């Protein structure tokens, strides 16, 4: 492990990835956000309030579950970090509580967010209601159509849902629309970015609010087994649940694996696996890895259906700290079924990618114990999967 891979960026520079590629008009508000983050969010008072919210509102700590049946079937010890048990059904609430608390303290009156599968939008709608902030969610029309339930949930909690029909009507287009809104309304609006993506300070701020996942998991795993897992696995769309899990283990001899949306295969023309196969570009305010130009962004899971990835992951790949693989749609669907049948846990399709990768790792035999971040529950996907499985 190189020294560089373990350093945590304080200026948003991840070995040349990251940065802040935004119009000049956004610089000052991002500076102010960075200052608020470094000032307010680092105080003991903020930490205490954040911790209370995580416990009392979100339902932390979440357990780790030894998946005995699955372990037997796959041939390695599989442990699940149960972020699916959180309020809202996914890890997204961690970040949303942190950012909403910060926005509230910084005097913002309005929250905006982009969402892919709708999980981040739902979590934003929750904190918008909790903190009594006006909330507007941008969601690609394609995603809104395949995740109607989440659209209804957001509206129930008082958020305005704006279905974006520009471009491919997907997550990337929702990000563009949200950035445009932000550029218009920088004075009173906080852009609650949902993953470790975008211009500085978002990647490092979201990492900090999600790192509770790994901190808890590390303590729990040690208490349960007396040691650390051989490998930690998480799905990677933007990559916040993965960074959240990895951060506490960054200096440990724990191998990291990221499961990207492999779509029809990372060598095909339809995937969402820029780390497995892509190139360096500048997109959505950051320098990072992006899928090739002739590839259509696609994953069976809306939450992984994103052409780029968080810059810290691009760095982890470059320095060899984490191995990223594209898990194709079929493998993810098989794992979705495995976990449902073997353990009675229905995972989010995103998280099923991590389970599928754990299955491959178990078969390869290099790691005896594998900790998988089960980033969300699969209720939102049941309708889609029922059609595919002809249930």
């Amino acid at each position: 492990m190189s020294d560089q891979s373990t350093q945590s960026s304080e200026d948003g520079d991840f070995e040349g990835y990251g940065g802040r590629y935004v119009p000049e008009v956004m610089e000052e508000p991002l500076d102010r956000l960075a200052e608020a983050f470094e000032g307010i969010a680092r105080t003991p008072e903020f930490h205490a309030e954040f911790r209370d919210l995580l416990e009392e509102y979100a339902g932390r700590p979440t357990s780790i579950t030894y998946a005995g049946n699955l372990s037997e079937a796959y041939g390695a010890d599989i442990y699940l970090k149960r972020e699916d048990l959180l309020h809202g059904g996914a890890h997204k609430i961690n970040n949303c509580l942190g950012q909403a608390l910060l926005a509230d303290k910084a005097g913002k009156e309005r929250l905006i967010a982009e969402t892919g599968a709708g999980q981040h939008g739902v979590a934003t709608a929750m904190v918008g209601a909790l903190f009594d902030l006006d909330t507007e969610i941008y969601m690609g029309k394609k995603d809104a159509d395949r995740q109607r339930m989440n659209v209804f949930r957001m509206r129930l909690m008082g958020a305005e849902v704006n279905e974006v029909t520009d471009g491919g009507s997907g997550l990337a287009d929702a990000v563009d629309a949200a950035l445009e809104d932000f550029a218009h309304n920088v004075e009173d609006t906080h852009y609650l970015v949902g993953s470790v993506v975008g211009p500085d300070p978002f990647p490092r701020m979201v990492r900090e609010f999600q790192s509770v996942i790994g901190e808890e998991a590390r303590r729990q795993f040690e208490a349960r087994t007396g040691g650390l897992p051989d490998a930690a696995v998480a799905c990677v769309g933007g990559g916040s649940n993965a960074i959240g899990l990895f951060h506490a283990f960054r200096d440990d001899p724990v191998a990291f694996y990221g499961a990207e949306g492999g779509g029809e295969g990372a060598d095909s023309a339809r995937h969402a696996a820029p780390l497995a196969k892509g190139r360096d570009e500048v997109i959505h305010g950051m320098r990072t890895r992006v899928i090739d130009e002739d590839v259509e962004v696609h994953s069976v899971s809306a939450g992984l259906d994103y052409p780029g990835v968080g810059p810290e992951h691009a760095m982890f790949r470059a320095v060899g700290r984490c191995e990223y693989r594209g898990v194709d749609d079929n493998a993810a669907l098989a794992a979705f079924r495995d976990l449902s049948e073997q353990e009675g846990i229905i995972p989010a399709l995103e998280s099923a990618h991590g389970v599928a990768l754990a299955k491959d790792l178990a078969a390869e035999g290099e790691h005896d114990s594998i900790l998988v971040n089960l980033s969300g529950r699969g209720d939102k996907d049941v309708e889609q999967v029922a059609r595919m499985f002809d249930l």
Partner: protein
Amino acid sequence: MSRIPEAFEGGPAFVPYLAVGDPDYESSKQYVEALARGGADVIELGLPFSEPIAEGPTIQGAVVRSLSGGMTPERFFEFVAELDVDVPLVCMTYYNLIYRYGGSEARRASEASGEAASEEADRPRAFVERAKEVGIDGFVVPDLPAEEADPLREACDEFDLDLVFIVAPTTQGERLERIMSQVSGYVYVQARLGVTGARDDVSGQTDESLGRLSQWDVPKAVGFGIKTGEQAERIVRGGADGIIVGSALVDIVAEGAADGEDAEVVADRLEAKARELKTGAMRGAGVETEEEDDGQEVPNPERT
């Protein structure tokens, strides 16, 4: 030195913007040439990028029309090479396209020669070199902050091109200093917060921005929200060395496209609008021009 500084010498400069290829390649060429006839001193040519995060709906519409007509960086360069205009041309685009162009060039070159791909710092060079070849005089890259601009600045220096930066009403202190140390050609003074788009009012933030910039010699061109000759006049009277107009012109192109009008008709309308804006700017500098009566002559004394 590029031709841009000269364009600001003969009085207030009128700097129009159009997205290249909007609504199609051939019409777009007529439109750009019409702007030159209407008195443009510098023309900003937009190379459309699929994720234009600094633009309002008007210019996003232009970007969509142009991209769906097949616009690419290579087509853009062909377009510029074929243009028949005699004013400096500034390429306005997003950093991704400049960065990516270098990547693909470098990859092709390294595949051919077997050498390692070019260094990160050389990435913008291929784009700048090609732009110089076809007759581009400078760049505006709205999403490239001064902090990340060294590689592009170096490439521009190598090929003698200007690099224009945008200064927002909120740009102050160290960041303003850094931008002003990198800028050349002119500084693009963003008249107000938000994204591009034609507005009815002219913001008071402009005066403050111009005041902050007065210690620097580089010409100050004010943009964002200008759509009439009267606004142009007021802004020049307030101390601007030039005015930048985009959305008000793109609106004319969009209406023409929506109504299926002939390109000639739309081009005439653009030329008339350009003349109105240029004349307004001249009035602001205390230069009265005859053509206000008959609306025919180009209000550009240094050219007659």
